[in-house]
């Protein structure tokens, strides 16, 4: 069965219709959990396993706020291996390279199915090569909140790493030796999992402010260490020095300016990559020159945004996760640096989500096709290298969605006639900016009209593709394997694309 984007979807799955189709459906909510007894305090993972009788075929969830520094998911994996529990369904909000213990569990069929929003590293590799016996389901951040609250992803036990917990069982990410800031992705797990364990290495008498309420917490597990908060640093706090990246960022800021988007009271979100940081820096310069104050910036928050908040350039930051330690510090001390849950961020069925209040967003792409469909999930061979995260959520919500990328990365063209996997539908992508010009989605006639007298190099996507091919030549076709290893679930729960095992010819 073909979905609306022409992707062949197995008949037992719901095909993607369009990004507004959720408006034709009612929100489905299971009841929030009601705690049966007082929060108990535990001192070992084994006690938690025993207390909740963790056994074959259950679903365990985790958040990824500690990112590469997370020890909780790794310790749980070790115990699963020791107990040889089989057929587990894992639902971490993201999977990072340090989660190496998961690899053995996948190979030994301890973990057989996975829901996640983003993955890379060794776990991504073994799944790409077809070693997960069941299916990998990729959600968006907002979509994960929806799939949990609807009961479609039932969680038996949520292990929530929590940098500080008080004696009542309330939890916060703001303080503690492994403070990581906002715990926005853990909120759906907290409210809807059958059993909730906060895992902490910092027990305090009483938290004055907390993001995780004890009313949902069954147990607090106190351990020596939940990880290393230094591992949360997303990769970079430096602006790109790459001349191509700088040109793209500069052109992006010129375009934002020509469209009149940098204005008093505006709102924005960008990624945390080096080129995105350059965009933020150019926007900051324009704001300072013209004394513009924005209403808010949101997303994964970086030092760049913290500096702008502290400099009075934004009134508020809405933070679902901190991308660096400066953001963590700001989250703890600045009352205008506010937490948001993943549902408040991007759940299509939540009221007044932040994603829908964004004036513009600047996003990346691994591939983009002639219909502006974007892939941020796989590389061209089909290897899993990421996932939507909030990409599809904010692409849909923002008034103007801009995707930036060089036309060629490592000699590989970014524009394709058809992307390897669709993560975000083209109807939600308005502008594609490259070093050799921009393309505007023909559906956005308003943007085309606004820019018609500008001296910005505007091309059709086909023209940009031809420019690319004139440099690289036409790439050879990539072989596809027949075996479906999972699918990409759009934020509303429909299937936007399937994921296939990487062809044997490309497995190294």
């Amino acid at each position, binding site marked *: 069965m073909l979905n609306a984007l022409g992707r062949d979807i197995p008949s037992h799955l719901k095909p993607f219709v369009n990004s507004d189709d959720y408006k034709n459906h009612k929100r489905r909510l299971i009841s929030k959990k009601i705690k049966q007894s007082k929060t108990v305090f535990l001192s070992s993972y084994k006690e938690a396993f025993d207390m909740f009788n963790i056994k074959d075929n259950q679903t365990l969830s985790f958040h990824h706020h500690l990112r590469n520094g997370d020890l909780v998911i790794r310790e749980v994996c070790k115990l699963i291996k020791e107990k040889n529990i089989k057929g587990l369904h894992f639902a971490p909000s993201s999977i990072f390279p340090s989660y190496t213990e998961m690899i053995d569990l996948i190979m030994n069929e301890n973990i057989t199915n996975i829901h996640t929003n983003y993955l890379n590293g060794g776990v991504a590799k073994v799944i790409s090569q077809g070693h997960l016996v069941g299916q990998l389901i990729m959600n968006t951040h907002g979509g994960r909140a929806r799939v949990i609250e609807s009961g479609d992803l039932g969680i038996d036990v949520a292990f929530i790493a929590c940098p500080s917990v008080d004696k009542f069982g309330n939890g916060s990410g703001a303080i503690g030796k492994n403070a990581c800031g906002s715990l926005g992705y853990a909120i759906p797990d907290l409210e809807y999992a059958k059993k909730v364990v906060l895992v902490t290495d910092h027990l305090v008498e009483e938290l004055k402010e907390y993001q995780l309420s004890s009313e949902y917490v069954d147990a607090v597990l106190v351990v020596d260490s939940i990880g290393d908060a230094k591992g949360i640093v997303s990769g970079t706090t430096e602006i790109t*020095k790459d*001349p*191509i990246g*700088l*040109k793209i960022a*500069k052109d992006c800021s010129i375009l934002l300016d020509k469209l009149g988007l940098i204005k008093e009271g505006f709102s924005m979100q960008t990624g945390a990559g080096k080129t995105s940081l350059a965009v933020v820096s150019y926007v900051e310069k324009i704001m300072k020159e013209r004394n513009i104050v924005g209403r808010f910036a949101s997303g994964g928050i970086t030092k760049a945004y913290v500096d702008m908040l502290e400099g009075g350039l934004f009134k508020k930051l809405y933070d679902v996760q901190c991308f660096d330690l400066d953001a963590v510090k700001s989250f703890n001390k600045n009352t205008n640096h506010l937490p948001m849950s993943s549902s408040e961020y991007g759940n299509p069925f939540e009221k007044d989500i932040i994603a829908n209040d964004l004036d513009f967003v600047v996003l990346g792409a691994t591939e983009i096709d002639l219909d502006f469909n974007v892939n941020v999930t796989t590389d061209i061979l089909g290897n899993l290298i990421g996932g939507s995260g909030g990409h599809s959520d904010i692409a849909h919500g923002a008034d103007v969605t801009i995707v930036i990328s060089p036309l*060629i990365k490592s000699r590989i063209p970014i524009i394709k006639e058809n992307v390897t996997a669709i993560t975000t539908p083209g109807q939600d992508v308005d502008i594609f900016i490259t*070093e*050799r010009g921009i393309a505007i989605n023909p559906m956005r006639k308003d943007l085309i009209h606004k820019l018609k007298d500008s*001296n910005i190099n505007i091309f059709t996507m086909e023209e940009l593709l031809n*420019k690319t091919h*004139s*440099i690289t030549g036409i790439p050879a076709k990539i072989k596809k394997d027949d075996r479906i290893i999972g699918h990409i679930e759009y934020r509303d729960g429909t299937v936007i694309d399937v994921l296939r095992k990487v062809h044997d010819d490309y497995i190294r």
Partner: protein
Amino acid sequence: MFRSLLFIPGNNPSMLQNADIFMSDGIIFDLEDAVNINEKDNARNLVETYFFTTKDLPKNIILRINPVNSLFIEDDLKLLLSRKIDYILLPKANMLSMYVIDKMLSSLEEKNNLKVTKLICLIEEAKGIAEVDEIAKHPRVEALLLGAEDLTNELEIERTTVGNELLYARSKVVYAAAANQILAIDTPFTDITDQEGLEYDCSNAKSLGMKAKTAIHPSQLETINQIFSPTKKMIHWAQGVIQTYEKVGKGVFQYQGKMVDKPVIEKAKKLIEKAKIFDLL
């Protein structure tokens, strides 16, 4: 006419591939100092292949060749047969190297029916400074480019951000260029991380009469272009002068309370011409 020229090492494929996208008024494809001796042939081959296979070439192509007394000069000059090169950048220019390059170019042009090759002379030795007035007179020469790194090495002095040590050399180049109605181009600012230093260096060079500046990294181009472009205010003034001149129809008149005569009108015309070339109008 340029404001900015960007150096790109001839042996850097990714920079070559993207040479046309930067906001430089011209690209200097470097076969000399940026290329190690065992990379010379590769760099030359790469640049030649780039010329023949690239659809969108930069608007002004300058080839920085190796010195006339090097082993590479003949092969470097053969790239002129591509007919894609607008200027040759002659390193270590002095009257002797001018004599040699002129002979070589004349012979190559005659044999291959090439148009006359224009030169940008790199004044980077004390000898070059001493002979710059004569160099600037040569009919092939369209611009003088000051090369401060080699020059300060030769003089055994340190380059500073303030740049007092270059005052004489800059002024010599500027006056030689102006006297022969050719372009004076300033030496690159070598610290690509020092934005403030770059701004100062550009403004200083401009105040001494330099009309353009070279860049060693694309990130320097925005600042260079901005400082060496006529400002909006200047363009507006020039437009007003020309409009008034056309209206009153005489050579001397008042504009905004100041006397305007032939040199001022010429200055205004030059400014408008520059603004048009640099897409500022």
